[in-house]
């Protein structure tokens, strides 16, 4: 592919346009940015109008679990980024290992999230819980945002895992290979976006003392 003329390469992939594919993926990521961005604005407004309640509520979150999940996601971003170099070098087994590690790290993130949420439910913190509704308005708003934003983020982690499993299978079958790997690049781009969203969620919810 690289040796032939760009854009209109001859052969079985005559209509392939990798730059166009990546640009399409970026355009989709911008819609995700606006989706989460809107929620961050709602967060900013309620934090501004209920500063004390937000600080009180944030004390309920476990900074340690949040930090561990941050490290997990950053590491998963590293492994998926490295998998692209591996596939470019034609190292199929290494690429499979790296994508596999990314999927396992995503799973680890979700397991942590499961226990974190489970603990919150046990102490009566979930949307509509009587214990929570007895709290000040700002605390209710904080946890409403916490569940919606980290929940939507977790949904993205699940979708990202699905995409990466699909990419893993495509590498195994050879559909994704050293000369054609834009599908893996798109999957990786999506995964990095999930990481970036968490980079902002983490300090705004967990590090508010």
């Amino acid at each position, binding site marked *: 592919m690289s040796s032939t003329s760009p854009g209109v390469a001859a052969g079985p992939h005559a209509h392939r346009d990798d730059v166009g594919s990546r640009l399409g993926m970026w355009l989709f990521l911008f819609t995700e940015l606006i989706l989460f961005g809107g929620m961050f604005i709602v967060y900013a407004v309620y934090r501004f109008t209920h500063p004390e309640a937000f600080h009180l509520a944030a004390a309920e979150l476990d900074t340690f679990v949040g930090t561990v999940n941050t490290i997990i996601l950053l590491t998963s971003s590293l492994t998926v*980024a490295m998998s692209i170099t591996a596939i470019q070098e034609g190292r199929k087994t290494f690429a499979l290992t790296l994508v596999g590690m990314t999927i396992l790290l995503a799973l680890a993130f979700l397991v942590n999230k499961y226990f974190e949420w489970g603990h919150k439910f046990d102490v009566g913190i979930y949307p509509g819980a009587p214990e929570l509704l007895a709290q000040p308005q700002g605390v209710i708003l904080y946890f409403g945002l916490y569940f919606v934003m980290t929940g939507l983020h977790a949904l993205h982690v699940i979708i990202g895992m699905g995409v990466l499993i699909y990419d893993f299978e495509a590498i195994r079958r050879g559909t994704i290979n050293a000369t054609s790997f834009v599908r893996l690049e798109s999957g990786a781009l999506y995964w990095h976006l999930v990481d970036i969203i968490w980079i902002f969620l983490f300090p705004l919810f967990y590090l508010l003392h």
Partner: protein
Amino acid sequence: MDQHTRTPHAETPHKISYGTYVLIWFGLLVLTALTVSLAGIELGRWVIITALVIASVKSLLVLNMFMHLRFEERTFRVFALVALGTLLIFITLTFFDYAFH
């Protein structure tokens, strides 16, 4: 399309070494440690500002290096700036509305 044919290597994205990726990852971990330890210090109004600055630096590292933005064609960066600019306008207008009520 014109720009496409003028950049002969557009089809083969820049290959980044494993070492560079590991270095970026290490930098991201250091910034995470920094933001966690700063959260324990009483910085008043600066808490949110330092947290957001660190998060922005981390995002720039991910965008430019992990997501290859700095090795893509200029169109990608223009698109990214338009998207971020749009979000920034939303944030600024909302802020002015609430700050000066």
